[in-house]
């Protein structure tokens, strides 16, 4: 631990270097957050409606889960590589890959959430004269919300970790610090990039838990 506190280029974390690279840290943070937010938001916007349709008919859910499962099995680096011929070394490449991953997590969770709505509740809503749309918005989605938010949390934390790999296809983010440090055998950026990525994941998760509690005061769901 003495090397951790020591202040020099050979220590695990050289504070002077970190302080001098404030601008780059901010720049990489923006890249990392951008890729994460777009992947999770687009994934959510696609997955939730798809799951609503999927909960009505198995015809849609089964093939989507199957295709999603196959994509999910492909490692991120390989998925980026498979997209390069079509989207090149651009932001689109990791965005498509990462969105595909979040899509599956969220589709599965939303489907689970919607299917866990008790039939009695559905019947009661129907009996009270709720229309299809109103029943979905006022009854089913609120009841599925804990599962959806749990999915968003898993998707967000997973994506933040995977964005580091995007540095390999020249898309920056905290992974760029890790790669730079590796190539120069310089520990400080490696430790910095790793720590920032973990910190971002933890902070995002805490924020999402707070959001969940604020949105759903009627329920306290233990973390999954």
């Amino acid at each position, binding site marked *: 631990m003495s090397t951790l506190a020591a202040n020099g280029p050979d220590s695990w974390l050289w504070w002077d270097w970190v302080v001098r690279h404030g601008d780059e840290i901010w720049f990489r943070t923006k890249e990392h957050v951008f890729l994460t937010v777009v992947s999770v938001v687009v994934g959510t916007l696609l997955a939730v409606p798809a799951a609503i349709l999927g909960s009505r008919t198995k015809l849609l859910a089964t093939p989507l889960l199957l295709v999603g499962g196959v994509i999910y099995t492909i*490692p991120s*680096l390989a998925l980026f590589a498979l997209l390069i011929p079509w989207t090149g070394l651009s932001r689109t490449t990791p965005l498509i890959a990462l969105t595909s991953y979040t899509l599956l997590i969220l589709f599965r969770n939303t489907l689970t959430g919607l299917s866990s709505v008790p039939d009695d509740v559905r019947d009661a809503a129907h009996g009270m004269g709720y229309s299809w749309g109103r029943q979905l918005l006022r009854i089913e989605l609120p009841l599925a919300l804990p599962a959806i938010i749990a999915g968003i949390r898993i998707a967000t934390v997973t994506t933040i970790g995977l964005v580091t790999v995007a540095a390999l296809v020249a898309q920056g983010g905290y992974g760029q610090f890790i790669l730079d440090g590796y190539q120069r055998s310089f520990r400080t950026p490696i430790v910095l990039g790793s720590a920032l*990525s973990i910190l971002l994941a933890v902070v995002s998760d805490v924020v999402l838990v707070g959001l969940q509690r604020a949105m759903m005061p009627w329920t306290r769901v233990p973390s999954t």
Partner: protein
Amino acid sequence: MIAATFLGEVVAWFADGANWSGPGGIPNRFFEYAEITFVSIAIASVIGLPLGFLLGHLGKGALVAINVSNIGRAIPSLALLVLTVQITGIGNTPAIVALVALSVPPIVTNTYVGMRGVDRDVREAAHGMGMTGWQRLTRVEAPLALPLVMAGLRTSTVQVAATASLAAVVASGGFGRYIVDGLATQDYVQVFAGAVLVAGFCIALELGLGLVEARVAPGRVRLESPAAHRAVPGLAGTAAPAGPS
């Protein structure tokens, strides 16, 4: 949009005899990839399975078992690989060390969850029959927990294979080499071919282990089980993880 000619070049790459021989050839890269994956998962199982069985049997450490794997999800595989290199140097060693570190927590968690899922009545009946703690663990609880344990092991193995492709960054062998070397030399045909091999390896592993699982622990819904779901980590989660890795 370069699809047709590009795919033709990829086919030509696979047809090229030079890519099928020597240390950089597909057969050797395959054995390297399989070796890294299976050595890592074997070491991780030797550490993780007994720990999970024991914690599950004693009913202790729930908080640890669940939280460790949640924290594990937040640690990027790339970070763990590169940090390990700083201690062990480059090559297959840091890859295996990092892969073991990544896969022990989900194995412990899944084994624990499987053990805790054993019906309380069954547990008490075994106790009432006068079975010792060891007998209950080995003859009652562990066999009943097997389907979930196997599902967790499959998820972890696929996740390890996924992360092993990334280990090429720290100079380990395997199919990931084609992707990393191709990116370095801007040889995108090789990058694509490598990605096809990595993806094929992981998908084949997932399907193959699914078959083994169906044979060893038949008659249970596995994919939809909450524990299997939680183990996705990423992929994978695995990804999950952990998720995709």
